């Protein structure tokens, strides 16, 4: 029910301004983008899809920021593991 899936906007339907075709891993579906009327998505942008409607745009910058935080954590972890390996008390 909370199911929201990211999908990429491919194109708008010519005669229906509220409808857009999106792609989710090679699967395409027409959804309603009326809830994003204040800032409609462009083809190539990503949206969050829930029960046939786009609820929100996916902010690529924020996504990149989230990922780089996670990369950083991962790297710090690896560094610590390496440090642990290298340091021997006996």
């Amino acid at each position, binding site marked *: *029910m909370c199911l929201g899936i990211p999908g990429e906007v491919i194109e708008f339907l010519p005669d229906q301004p509220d409808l857009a075709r999106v792609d989710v891993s090679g699967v395409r579906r027409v959804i309603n983008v009326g809830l994003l009327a204040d800032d409609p998505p462009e083809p190539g942008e990503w949206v969050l899809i829930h029960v046939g409607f786009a*609820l929100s745009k996916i902010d690529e910058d924020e996504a990149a920021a989230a990922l780089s935080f996670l990369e950083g954590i*991962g790297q710090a972890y690896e560094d610590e593991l390496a440090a642990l390996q290298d340091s021997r008390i006996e």
Partner: protein
Amino acid sequence: MRFVDEFRDADKAHALAAKIAALCEPGRQYKLMEVCGGHTHTIYKHGLEDYLPEQVTLVHGPGCPVCVIPMGRMDDAMALAAQPDVIMTSFGDMMRVPGSHGSFFDAKARGTDIRMVYSPLDSLKIARKNPDKRVIFMAIGFETTAPSTAMTMLRAAAEGLGNFSIFCNHVTIIPAIKAILDSPDLRLDGFIGPGHVSTVIGCRPYEFIARDYGRPVVVAGFEPLDILQSIYMLMRQLSEGRAEIENQYARVVPWDGNVVALKAIGETMELRPYFEWRGLGFISHSALKVREKYAQFDAERLFSVPGVRVADPKACQCGEVLKGVLKPWECKVFGTACTPETPIGTCMVSPEGACAAYYNYGRLTRTRVKEASGA
């Protein structure tokens, strides 16, 4: 899959788990509640509890809109479906919810015209294709889904559709969280905030939790790393003595929410003075109904429903599970009389219900799991 696979990386999970463990004060127990049923589902589906230290317990909250529907409302829905010339349409999750006389699924077997839809727009399509029938959409969900129902009604109005209506069971999340906070049975340290509800209502509505109750909230995404990162952010707040609202799901959740969505809801729906929640009792201003202006789309006005309040079966302890007081396996009928095939209560029926998630995914002690993966 983009924006999905990157948030499912096992190595980063280990790193986050180590950081979470490092933030635990020796001897202190931490109880964090994930409000949203979708989070409960992810936690069990990906075995996230395996990554948490013993000191951190996740408590499952009432954010499953299917789970909180009381039996009386289900009976009302069944009564609507049984009316002549009605086609009832519903999300898949509702098909097996038991009323006093079986579920939609059982009614379908007896010949009632009940159809599963993915979107309320599919329901509109059915209405257009069947002008001689009256199509009813069973509208459930929190603020995540209410905008879609609202837009569908606006569309129906624009098209002048005369045979479409909704049976409105939308509920709102804040009163439920407040009921949890006011409950004497629970002592929680922080909240993993609902992700998709927040795309609509934004993060401000949670501010009272930090300000008035002194508990931190982190609005979380639905991938495993999102949840682990959110737990890490909560633990950091707790160790630093902070109580703030943070947004881990910033790539999707705007701080101010979705104004268009809120306007659509406001245009077509209004708050009921009170509504009964399974397990939590009557909560004021916690659910939506169709406004007078859109009465022609309100199934409750167009048809008569019994409107009888039905108590939960005696054996059912869904209420306590929904409040997080009981873990699923602590319910007396869990797994024996109440299973996914023969559910007594909604926690077992909905795929997001804590009991269903635990039964389907988590039904092993941690030690057994470790034995098995070592074999």
